[in-house]
């Protein structure tokens, strides 16, 4: 069993692919159908290109602050590929790639970071919880989603994400612990991207690995190469299987790196060296996965060039759509406060409407 074999207390990290996309751990190479493999790659590329473009737009003043995903695509797409439609994704705030794979549209992702709540209104049957900004609090949501599944007797699994820094937060503790107490179908993935804004992983906790925190909850924990989509797929598959069998939750530490800034307001050069960034560039999750697919004759340069062309156009078109989308109306910002708007709030809204109409009609008296 995978989780017995890798002991985070000994610092053992689970890997399937090496830097050149070669399988170095045959026993655990997951059997994924070709179509899915290609789809995984395409989604990683989409996330990457969308990210790079958004950064450009942001620099041009066309996009607001957002949290880039670059470098972490494998630790997001791998796990999502190991889930089914009915399963839930309960993200933190840097899971754009996971969301895309799970069924959020790029339009929605962009719209959200563009500053419009409508971006979180995912389609019917797309089980994604909205981007969750307050660190750690999503873990309890995931426990609740899983708890509901258990009570209802469905076999949905909740997959949730948190950062390395987030593990210092009390809600991480309460949520993972809750999952253990009730043996819930829940998989918590820590994306250890080495930093919480400017604060290095070593400041988050004295524990050598984050995976070993699983011992606090009496559940399996494993450290996985987070830039290896296959390892992430395999570990998550195993965790999902356990969850569906009623064997309870799993904690996965995905060791990865945030290639970009924390958000577009951040200047990472203050706190990390170019050498460090370059070292991680060598481990790029897309390159590795590309090579794996190429080795399997599922992908090649020609296809890749075409894909990149296509995605760039798609991304640009989508962003244009977002820029042309109507801004939230006065009604929209009020009417979702409650199912039915209370009287006093109606009056507040109408007072603002009256003011706005008067301003628009030019008079201010």
């Amino acid at each position, binding site marked *: 069993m995978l989780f017995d074999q890798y002991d985070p207390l000994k610092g053992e990290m689970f890997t399937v692919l090496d830097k050149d996309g070669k399988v170095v751990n045959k026993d655990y190479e997951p059997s994924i159908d070709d179509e899915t493999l290609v789809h995984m790659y395409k989604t990683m590329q989409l996330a990457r290109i969308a990210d790079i473009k958004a950064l450009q737009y942001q620099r041009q003043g066309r996009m607001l602050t957002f949290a880039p995903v670059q470098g972490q695509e494998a630790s997001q797409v791998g796990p999502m590929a190991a889930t089914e439609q009915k399963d839930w994704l309960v993200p933190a705030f840097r899971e754009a790639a996971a969301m895309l794979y799970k069924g959020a549209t790029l339009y929605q992702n962009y719209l959200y970071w563009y500053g419009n709540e409508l971006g979180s209104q995912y389609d019917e049957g797309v089980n994604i919880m909205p981007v969750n900004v307050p660190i750690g609090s999503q873990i309890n949501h995931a426990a609740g989603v899983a708890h*509901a599944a258990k009570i209802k007797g469905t076999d949905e699994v909740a997959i949730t994400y948190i950062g390395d820094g987030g593990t210092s937060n009390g809600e991480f503790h309460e949520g993972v612990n809750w999952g253990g107490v009730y043996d819930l179908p829940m998989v918590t993935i820590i994306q250890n991207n080495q930093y919480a804004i400017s604060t290095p992983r070593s400041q988050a906790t004295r524990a050598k690995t984050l995976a070993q925190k699983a011992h606090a909850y009496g559940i399996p924990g494993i450290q996985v190469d987070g830039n290896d989509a296959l390892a992430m797929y395999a570990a998550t598959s195993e965790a999902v299987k356990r969850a569906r069998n009623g064997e309870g939750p799993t904690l996965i530490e995905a060791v990865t790196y945030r290639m970009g800034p924390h958000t577009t307001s951040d200047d990472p050069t203050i706190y990390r060296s170019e050498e460090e960034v370059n070292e991680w560039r060598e481990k790029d999750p897309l390159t590795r996965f590309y090579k794996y697919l190429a080795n399997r004759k599922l992908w090649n340069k020609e296809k890749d060039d075409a894909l990149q062309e296509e995605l760039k156009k798609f991304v640009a078109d989508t962003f244009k759509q977002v820029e042309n989308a109507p801004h939230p109306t006065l009604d929209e910002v009020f009417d979702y406060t409650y199912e039915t708007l209370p009287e006093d709030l109606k009056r507040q809204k109408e007072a603002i409407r009256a003011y706005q109409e008067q301003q628009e009609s030019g008079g201010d008296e």
Partner: protein
Amino acid sequence: MATMTLLKAINNALDQQLNNDKSVVLYGEDAGFEGGVFRVTAGLQKTHGKDRVFDTPISEAGIIGTAIGMASNGMRPVTEIQFSGFMFPGFNQMAVHMARMRNRSRGKYNLPIVVRMPYGGGVRALEHHSESLETLFAHIPGLKLVIPSTPYDAKGLMTAAIKDNDPVIYFEPKKIYRAFKQEVPEEEYEVEIGKARTVQEGSDITVVSWGAMLHETMKAIKELGDDISVELIDLRTIAPMDSDAVVESVKKTGRLLVVHEAVKTLGIGSELISRVNEGAFFHLEAQPTRLTSPDITVPLPKGERHHIVDAPRIKQEIEKVAYFE
């Protein structure tokens, strides 16, 4: 009809809703097996099973946070915070998520959650066991807050809270859990959230209170005799506040006294006074007034008498406002 205490009426509403709706679940610290430290949920685990009525770890963030997840996945969780003074570790979840999920997701996720918590003082309790924290919830857009003062309302408001598609905080006035009984229908009924109750009509002064303090106020009014005609309003829903009922009443009486257990500064009284100013300014014959606990920490029992508002003081204050010229 049966006669019930306020505590029993809550238990009855919970039992009924657990029966009628399979998506209702109930949990909290010690709320399952032993039925809570006040036994409000006694018997419910036995009737409805350990899956639907259960004990939790000491984890208020977990209790509220999982309720948010559960509600997003189709359940209607009724949660318990053991005492309102211990809600703070769960306040993050209530303020930043529970209150906002409908808006954040533009209606994709709405959260039919009830958060029950015993509140209020005058019961000679330990620190943190006597707080009145209405303001902290009523200030947060997206939350509702109700407080019953009678068994009838307790059941009706709980039923309405569970059926509400938005999160409802339900404060239970622990001091009057078992103070008296009232006829309560056995069948399901709702007391509308957002509507104050006029306890008695009157023409000289409008007095507003709720929870256990309402009964102290009623005692005071009884003492007053017929000299002053008091219109007494049980605010009952703190948020969204039925200030219209209060404003209308003050238009008639010209005078307002708000009585509450919570501290003065930014207590619910301040909002009511402001709204009465906004809605009935030219009807005011005396300054709208509040009688509240002072702006100090609830003292331990041996000092509590300096803190709590009692009937004689309420009586005096009613007279002051009513006779003011």
